[in-house]
């Protein structure tokens, strides 16, 4: 029997918040910043209904460290912010990575650098995919292109975080966060692996020895051993968790690569280009770290030219070049809130043919 899924009109921000609740998120802490304010407002109401914890923290620093505590206590914990606030959270994210504590962090990107503006942007790609804070680490980064996928990736994010014991970043942009769309709320995550019990959690040392949550390894050689262990974990994630979506890539001669809201604009451009007998296809990374280089290499095998479209000055561009050495890669990006339009993308592709 096929179950008809009920759809609700929601913003991407609300969809992510509700998905977190469905995923069993017990703790949320955040600080106001545009364009993600719908998340704390939604959580303030829903977490109370669910008899879970919502805290409006005094700063982003405090919020991420509250999440550190909630996670160390063994609970699913979430914080959300936007670009300048995410910069403030980097210290805490580094500590989470070092202490191997799971958490989900939502970044609804806005313009930068500095206070920038509140318009949509994709300029935190470097920060998100290269660790972001201090030290040798990575965080899995998932980038949704619509509200429903944002909900699915939140659920996946909590599972990845628990399975690998790592902070996971959901990298949305203001368009994806703010846009209202019909959403069929997923009931469970697509993640199939069995998530182990949190025997490491701080629960009080009853009937067992002491548990410690820490990222500090002072003794000579100890940090090297710890970091090598983390490296093995990143390698495992790199091998197992590459995700992407492709559209009309089988016979494509020209491949447009874009993520998040920009991929939706590029998607429309593909159909128009196809109508004009130009064999274009779309490659959309869903995991930005690990970058889906295997998928990209496959999709780009018989392609003549690569076109990267971003709402930045060219950040993902570097990962495309790393994945496809020797391929001709063209870049079109807009920054500071500028949005590449369908017609601009078509013009950009046709100019280079």
């Amino acid at each position, binding site marked *: 029997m096929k179950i008809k899924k009920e759809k609700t009109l929601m913003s991407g921000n609300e969809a992510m918040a509700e998905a977190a609740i469905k995923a069993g998120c017990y703790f949320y802490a955040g600080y106001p910043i545009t364009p993600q304010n719908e998340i704390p407002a939604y959580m303030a109401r829903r977490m109370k209904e669910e008899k879970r914890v919502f805290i409006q923290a005094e700063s982003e620093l405090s919020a991420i460290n509250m999440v550190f*505590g909630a996670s160390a206590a063994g609970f699913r914990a979430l914080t959300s912010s936007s670009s300048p606030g995410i910069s403030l959270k980097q210290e805490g994210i580094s500590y989470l990575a070092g202490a191997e504590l799971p958490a989900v962090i939502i970044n609804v990107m806005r313009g930068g650098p500095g206070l920038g503006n509140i318009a949509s942007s994709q300029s935190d790609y470097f920060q998100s995919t290269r660790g972001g804070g201090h030290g040798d680490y990575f965080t899995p980064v998932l980038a949704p292109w619509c509200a429903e996928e944002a909900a699915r990736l939140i659920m996946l994010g909590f599972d990845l975080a628990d399975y690998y014991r790592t902070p996971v970043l959901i990298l949305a942009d203001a368009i994806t966060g703010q846009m209202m769309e019909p959403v069929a709320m997923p009931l469970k995550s697509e993640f199939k692996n069995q998530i182990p019990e949190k025997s490491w959690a701080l629960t009080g040392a*009853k009937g067992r020895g002491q548990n*410690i949550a820490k990222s*500090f390894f002072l003794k000579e050689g100890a940090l090297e051993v710890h970091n090598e262990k983390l490296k093995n974990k990143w390698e495992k994630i790199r091998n197992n968790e590459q995700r992407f979506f492709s559209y009309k890539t089988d016979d494509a001669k020209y491949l447009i690569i874009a993520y998040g809201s920009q991929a939706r604009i590029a998607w429309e451009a593909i159909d128009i280009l196809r109508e004009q007998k130009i064999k274009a296809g779309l490659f959309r990374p869903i995991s930005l770290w690990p970058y889906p280089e295997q998928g990209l290499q496959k999709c780009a095998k018989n392609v003549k030219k690569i076109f990267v479209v971003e709402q930045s000055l060219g950040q993902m561009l570097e990962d495309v070049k790393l994945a496809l050495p020797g391929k001709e890669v063209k870049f079109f990006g807009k920054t500071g809130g500028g949005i590449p339009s369908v017609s601009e993308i078509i013009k950009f592709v046709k100019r280079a043919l």
Partner: protein
Amino acid sequence: MTKKFLRPPSLRPVATHYCSGCGHGILHRLVAEVIDELGLREKAIGIAPVGCAVVAYDYWDFDVCEAAHGRALAVATGIKRCRPENCVFTYQGDGDLVSIGMAETFHTANRGENLTCIFVNNACYGMTGGQMAPTTLIGQITATTPQGRSSEAKEGWPIKFSEILAGLEGVNFAARGAVSSPKEIIRTRSYMKKAFSNQLENKGFSIVEVLSPCPTVWQKKPIDAMRWIDEEMVKTFPLGIIKDR
């Protein structure tokens, strides 16, 4: 003959890394004694700070969480809200609690979080080599106030943070003790017991500040460091209960 003065089970039988004459050893013991006396070892979750006591988990035998510098009370908030049945406390120094973590401390206290905060005031940054702390006394020589802390030079005045916190509605109990003599140690222990008991009774935020010696940074013999607490520090930081609601 029976042994009366025993090591509390929550304190591991190991030597600490602290300098001779340091107050942390006494304070770790007091925390362990109070936790054991109240039967909280299996419920306790401590937050170790950044500073000399960063490896407090090596000395206490219960669950301990690390916190980034200054963020101990934010971490404690996260734990306590998820696990209200546990006994959650922070153990923090003056730089951690009053300088870099002032916002976290102030707002945690103001929310009236049901937590216990042990605040070790040694009027300097010990671990990093003896720089000026927000609690450094006027005239006190440190690595970054080589002429002595001067308010005229805009180096500020020592912050009496326990008094400031006591003004907040969310704070149930605030007291300042010292480890400079057996009498003051016993008194400090009673403040700690009150601060932990308050948490069990869901009374909100309790803070116990303790004046503690740092002979290495102060460049004093251990006994002279204890005297300096009694003769100099207490003039700026008077001992006693500041607030008990």
